[in-house]
């Protein structure tokens, strides 16, 4: 089996009017980005692919995420390396537009697997991954609503 990247943009139903061609075009663009990153290994490929989709505003992730009952965006993400069974994840982070990058930092730079809330955001601040939600170029509810 040759090197390969496979992506999904969420299952379920879309709310409102969605430009399917635009969504598919972006997923494919992110897959190509992941394929390019494969030179740095499978972990780099999935991180770059997911970060690309998080940043697009087209999906229920990153800057395109739906809001909770308090009107806030709270993001979850996880990443795993199959060779060494290493995993890293963050949950309920509010001011991290690319939580997948923070999840990788949790895996590689802490002894933990899952960080949540303030602890995760403190790590994001220390690693330059923190950005206040109010400054996001944000388009909530644009994508699927579901994990």
């Amino acid at each position, binding site marked *: 089996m040759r090197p390969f990247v496979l992506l999904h943009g969420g299952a379920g139903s879309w709310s409102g009017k969605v430009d399917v061609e635009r969504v*598919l075009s972006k997923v494919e663009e992110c897959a190509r980005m992941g394929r390019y990153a494969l030179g740095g290994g499978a972990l780099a490929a999935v991180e770059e692919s997911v970060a690309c989709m998080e940043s697009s505003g087209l999906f229920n992730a990153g800057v395109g995420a739906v809001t909770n009952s308090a009107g806030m965006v709270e993001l979850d993400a996880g990443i795993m390396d199959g060779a060494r069974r290493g995993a890293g994840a963050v949950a309920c982070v509010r001011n991290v537009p690319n939580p997948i990058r923070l999840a990788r930092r949790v895996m590689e730079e802490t002894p933990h697997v899952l960080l949540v809330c303030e602890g995760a955001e403190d790590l994001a601040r220390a690693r330059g991954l923190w950005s206040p939600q109010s400054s996001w170029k944000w388009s909530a509810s644009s994508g699927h609503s579901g994990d």
Partner: protein
Amino acid sequence: TVGAVALDGSGVFAAATSTGGIRGKMPCRVGDSPVPGAGYYAGTEGAASATGIGEMIMVELVSFRAVELLRNAEAHRAAEEAVGALERDFGWGNVGLILMSRSGPAIGLSAKLMPVAAASDSGSASALAGEMKVEDV
């Protein structure tokens, strides 16, 4: 939710999943996406990323189940069985799963739609799941 699985030139698998969760969820609610084995999993046999309603995916450890099934099943069958288990156990299906194995990639889907894309050194393609044969990319 978004997710990715990959196999690199050294034969290493990786998986990643990221989400905003469910619209209107309670503050501090956590779904399957950051839980290893639930929203994502990677091992020596393969890698998986799941999407759907997180509470059920968490309980069923859908991504771990899919990768474990690769020990005795082809990728397509493993993906379908992992997704089908939710319908069997809960009478509920609205899940998508992407799975990478050494024999190739596969998609399991009980939801209406799921945009997917694949890329290799041969090129790239995208489609709404069900329309694309990823093994042809």
